[in-house]
C-alpha cells in the first residue's frame, strides 16, 4: 500500500471507526444495580452483612417487611407495596417518597436509568 493511502486507511481505522466516542449508551439493569446498589443491597431474600435489605423478590412485597432486617419506622409504617410506580418514586427521591427513611442515598441516575433499574430489580427472584 502506498504511504499516503496507508496513512488514510490507518487514520480512518484509528479515529473513524475505533475512536471511543462520547455518546450516551443505555446501561442495563444489571450494570446499574452493580454500580448504584450492590454495595449496600444483595439480591435474594436473606439479609447479609450489607447495610440495606436484600432486593430479591421485591415485586408486590410490602415495604419494610424482610424478616431479620431492621427497617426505619418510616418505611415500616409507609404501607407501600413495591411495584413499578412506587419503586420509581422511591429511587428517584427517597426523601420525598418516604420522609425520615434510613437510606442515606442521593439518586445519581437519570430518569431512564431509574426506569431500567426498577424494571430489572422487580424481576429478580
Amino acid at each position, binding site marked *: 500500500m502506498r504511504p499516503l493511502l496507508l496513512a488514510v486507511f490507518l487514520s480512518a481505522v*484509528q479515529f473513524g471507526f475505533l475512536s*471511543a466516542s462520547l455518546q450516551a449508551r443505555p446501561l442495563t439493569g444489571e450494570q446499574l444495580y452493580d454500580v448504584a446498589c450492590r454495595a*449496600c443491597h444483595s439480591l435474594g431474600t436473606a439479609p447479609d452483612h450489607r*447495610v440495606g435489605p436484600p432486593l430479591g423478590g421485591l415485586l408486590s412485597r410490602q415495604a419494610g417487611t424482610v424478616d431479620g432486617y431492621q427497617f426505619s419506622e418510616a418505611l415500616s409504617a409507609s404501607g407501600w407495596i413495591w411495584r413499578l410506580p412506587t419503586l420509581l418514586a422511591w429511587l428517584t427521591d427517597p426523601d420525598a417518597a418516604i*420522609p425520615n427513611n434510613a437510606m*442515606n442515598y*442521593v439518586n445519581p441516575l437519570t430518569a431512564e436509568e431509574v426506569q431500567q433499574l426498577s424494571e430489572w430489580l422487580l424481576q429478580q427472584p
Partner: protein
Amino acid sequence: MLTRRRLLEGSIAGLLASASGGCNGMGSGRRVVVVGAGLSGLNAALILERWGFEVDVVEAKTRVGGRLWTLDHLPGSPEGGGNVMGAQYGRVVHMAHHLDIALRTPPRTLPSDYCIGDQRISRDRWASAGANPLPEAWRTIPPQRLMGKLNETNPLLKTRAWHDPNLMASDRSAEVGLKALGFPNAAIELINANNSYGNNLSDTSLMALYRIMGEFGRLSGPALAVQEATLGNMRLPEAMAKQLSRPVSLGEPVVAIRHSPSRVQVALASGKTLEADAAILALPLPALEHIEVNLSATQTSLLGQIDYHKIVQLHCIVDAPFWEGAGWSGSWWTDGLLGRIFTRPIPNTSRYNMTVWINGDHCDPLNALDEAACTETITHALWQLVPEARDVTSVGQLVRWSTDPYAGGVWALWRPGQAGTAHGAIRAPTGRLFFAGEHTAEAYRGMEGAMESGERAALEIMRVLV
C-alpha cells in the same frame, strides 16, 4: 516506539474486541487512567474493571490509601488519617467483608476533661467551674457538644438536599448564622477552638455544618456503632489495590493531563505518558492544583477557592496511665495550642495511644515550623498541661496533612456561598475528564463519601464510553 505495523495491529485488535462485544459486553478495549489510589479512585477502578475496561491507576505517593494512613510503625497502629467507619458506611463495610478485612468496634477513647486558659477542669465539674465561659442556660453543655445544638434548627435532618435553592439562606458565614440562631459568643469561641468542620467559623458555610450535623443526627444511635479495621484502616485500600488486574503505579506524580475530543494523555513526572479514552481525577483539589490541565472555566476559577481542613496530630505512646490517681480521665479538650488530646488503650497491652489533635487555623503557626520545631512546640505545651505525663510518654509521629503536597488538607470545606453550586460544578465531567474523591460526594463524607464518588465517576464513564 509506535510503528505503522503496531498501529495496524492495535487497530485490528481493537476492531476484533469491538466486534466480539468484549468482556461483559462493554468497555473492552477502552482504557481509563485513574489519578489517585485512595478509596475513590480504587473503587472506580474496580467497578470499571468488572465491566471490561482496562484501567491504570497512578499514585503520587509511595503507598496507596490517600488520606487513610495507618501508622504501622507505632504500637497500637494508630490512624494518622481517616479513622472512623460509620455504622451506615455500607460501601466501606461491604468492601471490607468482600476482601476479608476484619472490622472491630474501636477501643473506647477515654473520657475528656477540660482546660480553659490555664485552668484544668474535671468533666464532672464543667457546669459549675468558674472557668466555664458559657452563660447560664448553656453551662451544662460540654464544649464538644455545642455544635450539636445546631440540630434544633437543622433543615437537613429530614432531607439530604443540601443544595436546595429554598434552603440557600443558610449558605452564609457560620459565625453570623450561629449568632442569628442565638448561640452566645462564648459558645462560638469554644466551637472555633476545636472545630473539625471548618478552619474558622466565619469562613465556613452554615449549610455545610447543617449537612454534617444532619448526617450525625440521622445516622447516630446506640444500635449504630462505628467500626475500624482491626489491623488498620490502610488494609482496606491495600486489599482493593491487589484486586486490580494491573498493579497501581506508585511514586508516579502526574504533571500534566492533556485531553482532546478523542483522547486523554496523562504525563507523569518520570517522563512516561499514559494514553487513555478517559481519566478520573480522584485526588484532592490542592493536589490537582499542581497538575497542568485544562478544566472548565468554572472549575478553574474554583480551584484554590475551595478550602481544605487543616489538622496537625502528634501521636504519642503512654506506658502507664498517669492520669489515674490524679483525678483526671485521660483525654482533654483544651482551648489552647494543644486542641484536643484523645487517649485510648492499646488492646491486650497496658499501654495507650495518646493523640494531640489540633484543628483549623490553629494549625497555621505549627505548619510554618519545620518538623522538629513543630514537634518540640507541641510536646513543650503537652508537658506544661500534664507534667505527670512526661516520664511515661514517648513521642511517635507528627502528622501534618496541610503540608503534604498530595493532600493539602484532610477534607474539602465549603465556604459561604459554595454549598449551592460549587460542589456540583467542581465534579462536572469536562470532556473526557471525570472527577472522584470525598469532595465530590453527595450523600456521605469521609471514607464512604470517597467510595460513593468512585461509583458515580465509574457510572459517568460507563454511560458515555461506547
